[in-house]
Every structure is written in structure tokens, then in C-alpha cells.
């Protein structure tokens, strides 16, 4: 497995705040990594650093390039959709396709046409005349036709309706992703991407608080629906969080061996959202 991104001591300070406080992480090729954190945790800053869109301190290698230097070489193998609807509003659909086809050596026009054929986007329309969902479809058609090794998605489905959101991730997974490619996603809608992720990173106050693959996450975090008579024992094991469902309490444990939890009640695999909420408690305090 090759390492696609290596970051160490990544630090970014804005005037009054420290957005990244010296973080270290690696991203391997062929993975789908979710970067998840509350607002203002440093997600977007981290992505900007990776994409060479901002200055930073520390070491960072993206596909062997320092994003601060020779960015245009790096961008031949890196694609990104940052936020929804950043396509220029005056641009016509056909012009967008022609332009990318003209400047990007890894753009496959046939592939793009195939994606476009599935949509109802009028070719001569300007971007400002399209619905938000159509703009995202167009952007996705442009990006998926580029044979890139690394794709970054920053809140790619924000503000879209449910149908477009479902379709977005489905298309991405079925028609784009393969073991040659790596995808890094940030989003608030954790439930939506949970099933496609292979790795997850939690970020909070400019620090990485969790960095694990989904399998080890399932071993480390266990949720137990505890029978009332065992409640005291369960609390003794220091659960990360506790909530109650239909009068029974549900405890979320971090790193407690399965054998010790088994006698307490019914074990379940917690959702990513539950783990996120439990580990982020107090983040907005």
C-alpha cells in the first residue's frame, strides 16, 4: 500500500485563532477517508493546505509534491469539489466542458459525455440558470471524467435534496472509485457517508482526535443496551456516553473488551454519528 499524503506538524494560524495545531496523519492509496468535525474545527483549513490553497507551517507531501510549490503539477492528479456551486455563474455548460477538456490532459471527453447524457442539463444554459442539483451534477461529470488519483470533496452535497445526495454518492462509488483512487470527504451528514468510508478522522479544535479504519472502529467502540440490574456495573466501566431508550440505558464504550461487556446486555455496533457526538461532547461548550 502506498502512502498518498504524509503530513507532520501541520500548523496554520489565522490572526486570532489557531486553526491547525500541529497535526500528523497519513492517507493511504485506495481508501475513502472521512474527515469529520464540528464547525470551525479546522476541516476546511486542512483541506486547503492539502490542495495548496493556503499557506501553512509544517511538512506536507501530496503525491510526492509539496502543495506550496509546483502546485500545477500536483493538480494533474488531484481533483476537488470544494463546497457546492462554485462553478462560475456566467459560464455556459458547453464552455465548461470545452475548457476542462482543453486544459486538463487527463480529461476524458467521452466519459464526461456519458455522465452528461444521464442528466437533463441543457448544454447552452449558463450555470446561473441551472438548479443547485444540476450544478453539482455538472461539476461531478467534469470531475469524474478526469483520471485523477486523488479526489477531495468538501461538503459536496450541502443544501441538496435527498434524491441528489443519494445519487451523488452512488455515482461516486459505482462509476468512479476503484483501488487506484483515493477520496477524502468532509461533511456534516455523517450518516450519509458512513457506509462508503474505509477510514475516518475526527478533528476538533485543530487537532486530530481519532484516526482509524472503519473495522478497528467497530472493535474499539461498542454500544451496550444494558438491563436495569446491570446499570451500576456498566457505569463502573466508564462509558463514553449514556443515553436512554425506552427506559433502558444505552452506554457507549471506548476500548473496553467485548468479553467484559457481553454479560451486561445486548451489544451493538454504534453508528459513526453516535461515536462522533460522544467524542465531541463539550466541543461547543
Amino acid at each position: 500500500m502506498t502512502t498518498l499524503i504524509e503530513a507532520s506538524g501541520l500548523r496554520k494560524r489565522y490572526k486570532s485563532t489557531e486553526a491547525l495545531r500541529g497535526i500528523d496523519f497519513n492517507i493511504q492509496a485506495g481508501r475513502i477517508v472521512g474527515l469529520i468535525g464540528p464547525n470551525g474545527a479546522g476541516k476546511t483549513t486542512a483541506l486547503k493546505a492539502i490542495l495548496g490553497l493556503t499557506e501553512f507551517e509544517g511538512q506536507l507531501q501530496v503525491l510526492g509534491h509539496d502543495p506550496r510549490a509546483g502546485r500545477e503539477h500536483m493538480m494533474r492528479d488531484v481533483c476537488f469539489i470544494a463546497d457546492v456551486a462554485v462553478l462560475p455563474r456566467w459560464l455556459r455548460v458547453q464552455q465548461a466542458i470545452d475548457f476542462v477538456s482543453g486544459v486538463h490532459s487527463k480529461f476524458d471527453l467521452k466519459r464526461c459525455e456519458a455522465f452528461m447524457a444521464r442528466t437533463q442539463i441543457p448544454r447552452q444554459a449558463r450555470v446561473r440558470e441551472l438548479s443547485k442539483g444540476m450544478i453539482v451534477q455538472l461539476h461531478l461529470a467534469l470531475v469524474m471524467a478526469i483520471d485523477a488519483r486523488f479526489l477531495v470533496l468538501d461538503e459536496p452535497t450541502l443544501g441538496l435534496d435527498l434524491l441528489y445526495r443519494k445519487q451523488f454518492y452512488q455515482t461516486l462509488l459505482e462509476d468512479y472509485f476503484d483501488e487506484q483512487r483515493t477520496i477524502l470527504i468532509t461533511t456534516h451528514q455523517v450518516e450519509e457517508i458512513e457506509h462508503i468510508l474505509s477510514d475516518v478522522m475526527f478533528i476538533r479544535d485543530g487537532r486530530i482526535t481519532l484516526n482509524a479504519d472503519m473495522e478497528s472502529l467497530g472493535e474499539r467502540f461498542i454500544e451496550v443496551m444494558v438491563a436495569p440490574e446491570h446499570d451500576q456495573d456498566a457505569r463502573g466501566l466508564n462509558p463514553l456516553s449514556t443515553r436512554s431508550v425506552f427506559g433502558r440505558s444505552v452506554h457507549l464504550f471506548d476500548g473496553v473488551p467485548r468479553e467484559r461487556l457481553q454479560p451486561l446486555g445486548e451489544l451493538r455496533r454504534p453508528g459513526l454519528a453516535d461515536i462522533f457526538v460522544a467524542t465531541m461532547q463539550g466541543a461547543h461548550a
Partner: protein
Amino acid sequence: MNTFPWMLKREYWEHRGGFLLAPLWTGVTLLGFTSIGSLFTHTTPQQIQQVDRVISPLLLGIDGLFGVVIGFVLFFYLLGALYDDRRDRSVLFWKSMPISDTATVASKAATAVVLVPILATVMALCTWLIMQILLSVFVLAHGGNPLTLIWMRSAVITAPALLAAVLPMMMLWMVPTAGWLLLCSAASRSTPFLWAVLIPILLGILNGWIGLLGLPHLPAEIMWGDGVKRVLLGTFGTLDVVNAMQAAQRTGGGFGASLLAAYDQPVAWLAGIGGIAMMAASAILRRRSVDL
């Protein structure tokens, strides 16, 4: 892969209205007024015999008018060139392409300094040609022979040739302003217009104050004439050249004198170097941040 033509095309797509339609309508309007006006003009036979005298001044006048139009168009184009896409965040799309920031700035500078002046000159020439045809009809209507009075005169060849010959100089005059406006466009977090206009003017006033206090300062004609004017009004560079040539022609100078008058401007070369330095600085700013 040759990406530069595509980047120029992208500029044209976005600004077709300013680059093409504004000069086009200028030409059409000018021709319309001329044809209507000629119907009411009283002309003596002697004036008809000397109609060739207007050939060259007419072309300079038309080119000057086009120069004013693209002067305004380019001023606002350059101010927005590296700012507007940061404001509407579409910079994130442009920056997702494998294009260097130097190439981006170069494409915008080349559009303003090279492509649009060429386009405007060609359109000025077309307008002038059509006007020569109108003039021929006018001469014919007054009993003159347009072939000998207009089309066989040397000015028909020398006037457009002169215009083509001084085009590089018109471009050179645009460089300092293009550099300054691109720099403001790349650096501003808001209102690039205010920064671009206020900084040079305040510097000019400050220089004047220092002079009033009796301290070392730049002479006013250098500070305002070669400094402030060059960074703010260079997109009207066509006018500088046209004025110099008109002055030469008024004192009876011909082709050679006009050409010399256009090129004998050492300040233009110096200001051009400054303009290129400011363009380089714009590319560095463009690379460092996409945020407002």
C-alpha cells in the same frame, strides 16, 4: 498541452460584452451619426478637392474614440480579474485545474494588453474603411471622383500602416496600469476600486505636502504626470500615442515624424518594467490565498 489559448478564450467568454460588443456598438453608432450628419453638411467644391486631408486625422480620431471605450472596459476588467472570482468563490473551480497562477495572471494581462488593443484597432480600421466608402459616396454626390480624390491617395495606405506600427507602443502604455490594477485586484479583500484609485492619489498629495514643508520630494509633473497618471490611466494608452501623433501632424510632420513621436517616450519603457514587476507580485498573491 497548450493551455494558454483556452485561458484566453475563457477571458473572452466572460467579457465578450466589453471586449467585442462595446467597440462594435461604438463603430455602428459613429457610422450612423456620420451618415446622417453628411446629409446636412454644406460643402464647397474646393473642400471636395481637398478631401484627402481628412483621411489620416479621421483614422486617428476613430482610433482615439475606440481607445476611450476600451480604456474604460479594460480598467474595470483588470480591477475584477483577480478579485471577482474570489468574491463569488469560483476561484475554487479555476484553481482545481492544473494551471499555474503565473499562467493565470499572464492570461489576464495578455488579454488586456495585447488581445483587446488588437481587436479594438482592427475594429477602428473597419469603421474607418466603411467611413471611406461613405465619404466616396459623398464625394460622388458632389460631383467629385472618389477614385482619384480618396482611394489613390497615399494616406489610404500610410494611415493604417502608421496605426499598425504604433500599436506596440499603445500596448506598452497599458502595462503599468495593467500591473497596478491586477495587483490591487489580487490583494484586495474588498473594494479594489478604492484601493487602486486612493493609494496613488494620496501618495501624490502626500508628496505635495512634503514639498510644501520644504523637504525633498518629487517634482509634481513627475509624481502626477509620470507616476499617478501612468498607474491609473494607462488603459487609455491609445490616447497617449494618438495625442503625440496628432501633435506631430499638426506641426506638419509626416509618417516618420509621427512614428518617432509615438516611440520617443522613455518613461513608457521604464513604467513598463514596473508594470511587469507588479504582475509578478500579483501572481505570488494569487498563489498564497484564495480567501477574501
